[in-house]
């Protein structure tokens, strides 16, 4: 549409609003120059255009913002920290385990791992033959006594179910007595030793206090100079050599006043039959 005297006002306004193409702008300028009576109206419309004013928003600084600062730990530092934490926890755990094992060994108890190994081996040969060996003499003399032997088919896994209070009652024994699994109420599961070799069978020997005065009199293991604080023993039965080999272990103290003077005594014996 070309500009004419009927539509010039719209063209003038579009021209002042800078909404016309360059070609249309030239046509409007040409129309104004050719129609002098409309120049005043064009100038009046031009005067309605607001000119920029210097208005400043003074509190501009109040609008500025900053991101919340977050401390970002580099990934490699996190990995180093995790590694150090694992090392510390691992060393602490290992020290705890070793300490507990040492304490148990000193008190005549067998580590948990050893007990587990024992159970596993029992599963390999469930038909275990246990023997009853009663002795009332010195450990050295025990080697000359022919033991009474009984056979029984109980698994040692049952032994592990004995409660702890029964074990504690046996730790104050003054005489050693070799018992079979038939008297399991007197067996301390924590005293089951580690057995090496698949051919070896195990007997459990526990310390037991006897009320029989005759037995007490004949209890050569009761030493006069030492108070037995705890005693366990381990017996290995060798079917090939027809012999029972083992050792007695006692943790003793010399006098009540000397609590720290504990001493571990071990006696080795072998019984042939």
């Amino acid at each position, binding site marked *: 549409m070309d500009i004419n005297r009927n539509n010039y*006002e*719209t063209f003038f*306004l579009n021209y*002042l*609003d*800078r*909404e016309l193409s360059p070609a249309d702008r030239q046509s409007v300028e040409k129309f104004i120059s050719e129609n002098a009576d409309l120049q005043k*109206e064009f100038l*009046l*419309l031009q*005067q*309605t*255009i*607001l*000119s*920029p*004013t210097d*208005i*400043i*928003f003074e*509190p*501009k600084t*109040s*609008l*500025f*913002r*900053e*991101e919340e600062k977050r401390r970002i730990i580099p990934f490699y530092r996190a990995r180093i920290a995790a590694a150090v934490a694992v090392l510390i926890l691992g060393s602490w755990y290992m020290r705890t385990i070793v300490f507990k094992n040492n304490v148990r060994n000193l008190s005549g108890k067998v580590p948990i791992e050893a007990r587990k190994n024992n159970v596993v081996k029992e599963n390999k040969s469930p038909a275990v033959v246990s023997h009853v060996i009663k002795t009332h003499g010195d450990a050295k003399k025990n080697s000359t006594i022919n033991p009474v032997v009984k056979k029984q088919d109980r698994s040692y896994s049952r032994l592990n179910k004995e409660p702890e209070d029964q074990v504690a009652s046996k730790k104050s024994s003054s005489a050693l007595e070799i018992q079979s699994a038939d008297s399991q109420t007197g067996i301390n599961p924590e005293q089951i030793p580690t057995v090496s070799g698949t051919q070896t069978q195990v007997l459990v020997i526990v310390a037991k206090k006897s009320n029989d005065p005759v037995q007490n009199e004949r209890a050569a293991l009761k030493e006069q100079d030492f108070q037995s604080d705890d005693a366990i023993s381990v017996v290995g039965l060798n079917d090939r050599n027809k012999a029972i080999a083992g050792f007695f272990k006692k943790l003793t103290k010399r006098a009540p006043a000397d609590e720290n003077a504990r001493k571990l005594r071990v006696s080795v014996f072998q019984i042939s039959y």
Partner: protein
Amino acid sequence: MTAEEYNDCVKLYADGLYRFMLKSTRQTEDARDLVQSSFEKLWEHRTDVNVLKSKSYLFTIGYHKMIDLNRKNSRIEFRETIPDQTVQTQRNTPRLKELLEKALNRLNERQRALVLLKDYEGYTYEEIAEITGLNITQVKVTLHRARLILKEWLVSVEHVL
């Protein structure tokens, strides 16, 4: 939009937005509050706003906030009924710029806003339509009517002068 880009928007557009608000409301405190709230909203939605669209986003927020405020306070009707005594008292200093500032009082809310957006900020019809939510034809018609009102008022003042 990062915080740095937002602060650049403050430097570039705070004065223009304040001018637009001040000319629209003619209340300094209202204009400042509108600018503050507009930039507050821009900051809240900075992650969703394109930097290139930040100015129109600001003016869109400001325009609608100004409309809401004016409707709430009903100040527009009051101001349009203000007599032209101020013009008469300034007869001895009839400057065109001041006359035009006064002439804006004769426009309604929408006409004034569109004239301000067109003349001060240089927005096109299409951009003004995006900001105000009107279509291009409405923008064009409204602006042309506003120009004619201003022209007639200027003619009448010239006769008085």
